[in-house]
Each structure stands twice: as structure tokens, then as C-alpha cells.
């Protein structure tokens, strides 16, 4: 037995799904949050039942890829006789939700209706006679408020009562049928405009909306930086410096302060209190511990002296040093900060409004305003960003949006590392990096809009009401995304550190460094070792940027390598999703654009910057 959750976009299907299955899915306040179906399981009378969260759709005649997924799911579900559909309906928009309901009632699958957002009907002055609606339609109708869990138990109890084809009507008369139903069950009382209504209108009219948008984006940026920096300075860095460092140094001593295993796990050691802070490998090392952190080292002049050693979290490049420090103490704080703000914006209902405001601007790039949502999600991680391009109607739009995102939108992990590395130069270092990426994004968009055949469709989107985000739902979403980052990122970062150590010790990096020297040195003006970062960048961008730290690059070289690492190729996870979304041929086209524009822009920066 399978249960499909279907309904118009943004009616709360994903929240109901979480309530039924206990599984966690991302839910937000804008149409098209769910672009792919999610499976979960619930217990029903001792039986394990599959529940599917289907992307929202207004009709059974799809207009986007996400809607196509929904219609295909329904078709598949009709094959088995014991499958049912829970039709989730927005109680505050009964009329147009019934449009899909009546279409579902014509299908050969039992349905029951979940009248969600029931609590909001009181605020907007709507009264619905539930019993009468149930009587007319002939299927169970259960009012729910999924966010608080109200009505869910009743919904589960009524599942066996689901029926199919209980309401006969002529397809021609669908809207007049709906009109009749609504008239007999719904009672609307006049209500005054609330503050949120007025804010809703102000933030969508260009005259007031643009200043509001600038304010919101500037505030978001400031808050993300403040939270990220504070978490690093007062929490994560102290933990690593004061608690973890002594442990690793002891561990290093146990491993004999050197050797292959030691270098992979702990990484390079540095002399403490040495004025020049030379690498210990620059000095012949005997590896004998005397006491504490001291080892006997032989200087270049042949002297044997005791010296205290330590590790440097950003430069040692061991699995337990840099391999943990980068994801936890440099990236994670910004991930938390970014997703906190993004989740707030998503749940408030602001994002579609931003899309409407930016619509004219985005049309220059061959896209419509709504494509700002995949771009914003891409700032967190390009993988969900690439998936979110499914809300766009045409293949051309999806190609432009996905390519622009993969080239010019660095993910938060990479941004955090750029902040960490280039941030010390302040605006002088950060502006050229992000300014260049923005210009690339814009110009490349214009070029693709001009040269790719086809039209860009117009924006067509429902604007959800503003809602005050539910703190618990918001924190849960933040936790899901943070958890996802930890699970996906850490293995790849560690793998990257491991591979780079092996490649260095096999002298592969030197080899590639020499081969690619004409490009890397000649065109981009970077040292040969930067090839190592470009290789690891295929795996993950954050650790790739981290690998630039020990190279002693100038500010100009840091800017060029940050830009090139963003542009030249997506990380392997994004690449895999893009191949799936665009197809191999389109992805190949996209890849050529990436590599060429990365070389062009990197080379240009090398000529322009001093």
C-alpha cells in the first residue's frame, strides 16, 4: 500500500509528510519547494505503509518538470488497487484548490481530503462547513493544522474511508460545479487588512519594494558575517586551539613526530617560538622526542638542538589537523549562519516577492525572476540549487540557470574559506573576488540569452501570504541542512586531504605542476603547486581553497585562484546532479563554457590586477 500526498503548491504537503512519517523534509513558504518526490514510511494497523511527498501541482496537465513528476507519480500509483491519495487542500483558497480535487476525483484512485491551514481560515474570515463539503464530495474531509499537528490523528483514522469517483460531473462544467460547491459550504466575512498584508503589498511594489529588498539583503549579509565570525572566534577556534591541539601534539609524539602515517594523520609540524617559523621538514629531523613537545632537530648547519614543535591548523594538511579544522572551524559556522537566514527568508514568504522585483533584471539573462531562488539556494550549496532549477518551465532556462550557478555562484563552504583566506585584506581582497564573479554571472547570462535559441517565458507565480516563521520548524530545518552538510562534506574533505598527501608523496603534484605550468604560471600567474588545489577542487571547493594557505600567495594570486577555483568546474556532487538534470550532452556544453570562461577571466585578472 502506498499513500500519495498531492495538492497545489505551497499548501503544506511536506509538513504533513513529516507529521505522518516522522521523516524530515525541507518545507518552506513558497510554491515549488519540493521538486522531487520523497519517500517515507508510517505504521498503519501494524502494516508498514509507504508515504510519498509529491511535488505540488495546480492541475493534472503539467507545465514544469516538477509538475510532470507529480503527474507521473499519480499514473504509477493507479496501477495498484490499494494505493490512496491524500489531497492536501489550502482551506483559505478553497475554490482554486477544488479544481485539482475535482480532477483527482475523476481518477481511478481512492482519495481523501486534508483541509490544511485550518487555523488560518479564522484569521482571514473564512468559515467552511466541513460536514457539508464531505457530504457533497462523498469522500472524507479532515481539517488539519499540520504545523501544530492538529487533526493528523483524525486524518490517519479516516484513511480507510478513502473513495474514488464519488463525484460525477461534466468536465465542461468544472468551474461552475466548483462555484456551486464553494457557495454552499463557504462563508466569507469581511476583514480588515493586517500589518502583514500591507507589508506584503509594500514589498512587491517597485517604489517601496526595491529599498526593502536592498535593506533585507544587506542586513542578511551583515548578520551572516557577524554570526559566522562570532561562532569562529568565540566557539570553534578556541575549541580547536585549546582542546584539540594539545591532543594532536601528544598524538604526534606517540607516532614519532614523522613518517608517512604521521604526515597523513597529523601533517606537517612547525617549530614553535622560532623567529622564522620554518617547516620542520626544512630541517633534518631525527624524530626523537625529548620531553613534552620538544624534538631533537638538526639545523642546516649541522647543529643538534632541542626545539618545541606545534601544528598549524590551516597549513599542516593532516587528516586530524586541517582535515577537521576546515569543515568544522572554518566552514560550519558560516553554514549555520547562512541557513539560519535563508530558512527565515524562505519561511516568511519573501523569496517569490524578491523574484517579482528582480523579474525585469533577470530577463536580461534569459531567465525570469523566479530563477533567483535556485541562485540563492546555490549560495548555500550548488546541489540543491541545481535541483531547484526544476521549477523553471523550459529546458533553455534550466540550462542557463544551472550553468550560471555552477560557474559564478560559489557555495557557502567556498565563500567561508575565501573569507578565511582573503578576508584579512578586507574589502581590497574580497571585492575583486565577488565583484568579478558577479560581473561574470551577469555578462555570461546576457551572452547565453543572446546566443542560445529560444524565448524566455514570463514569470507566473503565486505569491504566498507572509507568515511569521515557526521557530521550531525553522530550527529543525537548520539542523537538517547542517546535518546534511556534515554528512556530505566531511568524508569528501577528508578524502581530499588524504589524496593530496598521497599525491605529494608520490611526486604526482610536481609532475602535473610542470605539465600545466604554461597555463597555471603563464596564463594565471600562479605557482605550480596551485595545480594541487585545482585537482582537489574537483572533489570539494572548500578544502581546495584551504590548500592555497601554505603556498604563501600574494593578494593578487589569492584573488585569481579564488575566482578560478569557483569557475573552472563544479565539485563532483554538483557535477553528478547537473548531469542528471541537464543530460550528458548539455552538461558537456556547460563544461566547455566553464573551463573557457575560467581561463579567460583568470588570465584577464592576471593582466589587470597589480
Amino acid at each position, binding site marked *: 500500500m502506498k499513500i500519495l500526498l498531492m495538492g497545489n503548491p505551497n499548501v503544506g504537503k511536506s509538513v504533513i509528510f513529516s507529521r505522518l512519517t516522522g521523516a524530515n523534509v525541507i518545507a518552506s513558504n513558497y510554491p515549488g519547494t519540493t521538486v522531487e518526490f520523497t519517500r517515507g514510511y508510517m505504521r498503519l494497523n501494524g502494516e508498514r505503509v509507504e508515504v510519498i511527498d509529491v511535488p505540488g501541482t*495546480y492541475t493534472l496537465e503539467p507545465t514544469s518538470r516538477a509538475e510532470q513528476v507529480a503527474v507521473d507519480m499519480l499514473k504509477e500509483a493507479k496501477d495498484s488497487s490499494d494505493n490512496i491519495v491524500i489531497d492536501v487542500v489550502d482551506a483559505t483558497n478553497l475554490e482554486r484548490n477544488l479544481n485539482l480535487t475535482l480532477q483527482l476525483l475523476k481518477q481511478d484512485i481512492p482519495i481523501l481530503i486534508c483541509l490544511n491551514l485550518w487555523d488560518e481560515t479564522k484569521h482571514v474570515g473564512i468559515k467552511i462547513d466541513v460536514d457539508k463539503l464531505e457530504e457533497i464530495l462523498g469522500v472524507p474531509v479532515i481539517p488539519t493544522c499540520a504545523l501544530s499537528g492538529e487533526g493528523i490523528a483524525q486524518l490517519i483514522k479516516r484513511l480507510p474511508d478513502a473513495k474514488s469517483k464519488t463525484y460525477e460531473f461534466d468536465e465542461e462544467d468544472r468551474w461552475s460545479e466548483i462555484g456551486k460547491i464553494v457557495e454552499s459550504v463557504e462563508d466569507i466575512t469581511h476583514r480588515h487588512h493586517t500589518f502583514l498584508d500591507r507589508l506584503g503589498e509594500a514589498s*512587491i511594489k517597485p517604489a517601496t519594494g526595491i529599498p526593502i529588498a536592498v535593506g533585507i539583503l544587506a542586513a542578511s549579509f551583515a548578520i551572516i558575517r557577524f554570526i559566522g565570525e562570532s561562532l569562529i572566534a568565540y566557539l570553534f577556534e578556541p575549541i580547536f586551539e585549546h582542546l584539540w591541539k594539545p591532543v594532536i601534539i601528544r598524538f604526534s609524539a606517540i607516532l614519532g613526530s614523522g613518517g608517512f602515517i604521521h604526515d597523513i594523520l597529523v601533517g606537517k609540524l612547525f617549530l614553535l617560538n622560532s623567529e622564522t617559523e620554518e617547516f620542520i621538514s626544512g630541517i633534518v629531523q631525527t624524530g626523537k622526542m625529548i620531553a613534552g613537545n620538544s624534538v631533537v632537530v638538526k639545523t642546516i648547519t649541522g647543529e643538534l638542538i632541542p626545539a618545541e614543535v606545534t601544528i598549524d591548523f590551516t597549513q599542516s594538511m593532516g587528516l586530524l589537523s586541517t582535515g577537521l579544522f576546515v569543515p568544522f572551524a572554518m566552514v560550519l559556522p558560516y553554514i549555520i549562519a547562512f541557513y539560519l537566514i535563508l530558512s527565515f527568508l524562505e519561511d516568511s514568504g519573501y523569496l517569490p516577492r524578491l523574484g517579482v522585483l528582480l523579474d525585469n533584471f533577470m530577463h536580461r539573462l534569459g531567465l*525570469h525572476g523566479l530563477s533567483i531562488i535556485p541562485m540563492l539556494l546555490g549560495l548555500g550549496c550548488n546541489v540543491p540549487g541545481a535541483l531547484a532549477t526544476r521549477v523553471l518551465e523550459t529546458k533553455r532556462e534550466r540550462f542557463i540557470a544551472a550553468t550560471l550557478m555552477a560557474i559564478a555562484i560559489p557555495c557557502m563552504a567556498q565563500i567561508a574559506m575565501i573569507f578565511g583566506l582573503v578576508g584579512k585584506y578586507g574589502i581590497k581582497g574580497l571585492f575583486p573576488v565577488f565583484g568579478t564573479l558577479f560581473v561574470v554571472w551577469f555578462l555570461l547570462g546576457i551572452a547565453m540569452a543572446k546566443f542560445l535559441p529560444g524565448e524566455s*517565458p514570463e*514569470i507566473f507565480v503565486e505569491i504566498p501570504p507572509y507568515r511569521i516563521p515557526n521557530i521550531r520548524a525553522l530550527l529543525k530545518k537548520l539542523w537538517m541542512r547542517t546535518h546534511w552538510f556534515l554528512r556530505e562534506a566531511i568524508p569528501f574533505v577528508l578524502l581530499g586531504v588524504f589524496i593530496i598527501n598521497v599525491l605529494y608523496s608520490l611526486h604526482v603534484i610536481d609532475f602535473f605542476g610542470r605539465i600545466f605550468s604554461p597555463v597555471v604560471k603563464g596564463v594565471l600567474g600562479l605557482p605550480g603547486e596551485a595545480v594541487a588545489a585545482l585537482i582537489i577542487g574537483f572533489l570539494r571547493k572548500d578544502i581546495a581553497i584551504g590548500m592555497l594557505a601554505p603556498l604563501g600567495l600574494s593578494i593578487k594570486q589569492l584573488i585569481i585562484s579564488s575566482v578560478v577555483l569557483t569557475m573552472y568546474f563544479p565539485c563532483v556532487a554538483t557535477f553528478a546532479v547537473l548531469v542528471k538534470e541537464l543530460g550528458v550532452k548539455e552538461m558537456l556544453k556547460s563544461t566547455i563554457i566553464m573551463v573557457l570562461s575560467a581561463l579567460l577571466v583568470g588570465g584577464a585578472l592576471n593582466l589587470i590586477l597589480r
Partner: protein
Amino acid sequence: MVIINLSSMRNGQTGKVTGVGGGFGLRRRLEALGIRVGVNITKVSGATRRGPVVVRAGNTTVAVGHGMARRIRVEVV
């Protein structure tokens, strides 16, 4: 009673939809969001020249592109 198209309505003006030009596909999509013949809609925002138009129909607020807005005919008082 005058029939104009949605894009030439003033912001804040209300009118009754009398017809939707263009293809069947567009009509169906607008219908699904509650914009169809006989329904009262209120223009929330939108420049008269280019840019999207935001319109309210019942409890639903919808943003449509300028080209679509020109195809929606509205009877205003």
C-alpha cells in the same frame, strides 16, 4: 463600463475578468490560479510599460508577466 487589459489598469483598481486571449494553455494556467472569466480581480502593482503585474483574486495573489497581463481583459467601472 470599460473593457481594458490588466496591464493598463491602475494599481488598486478592481475589475471583472471578461476574457483571456492567447492559447488554451495560458487560459488553463490562469484558471488554475483563480483568474478566469467572471471573477473579480484587483491589481496590486505593476508598471504600465514592462515588468510583471501582481494581481489579487480572492485570497490568492499572483504575479504574471507583462505579456500575459496584456491578454487578460477586464471590465472596470
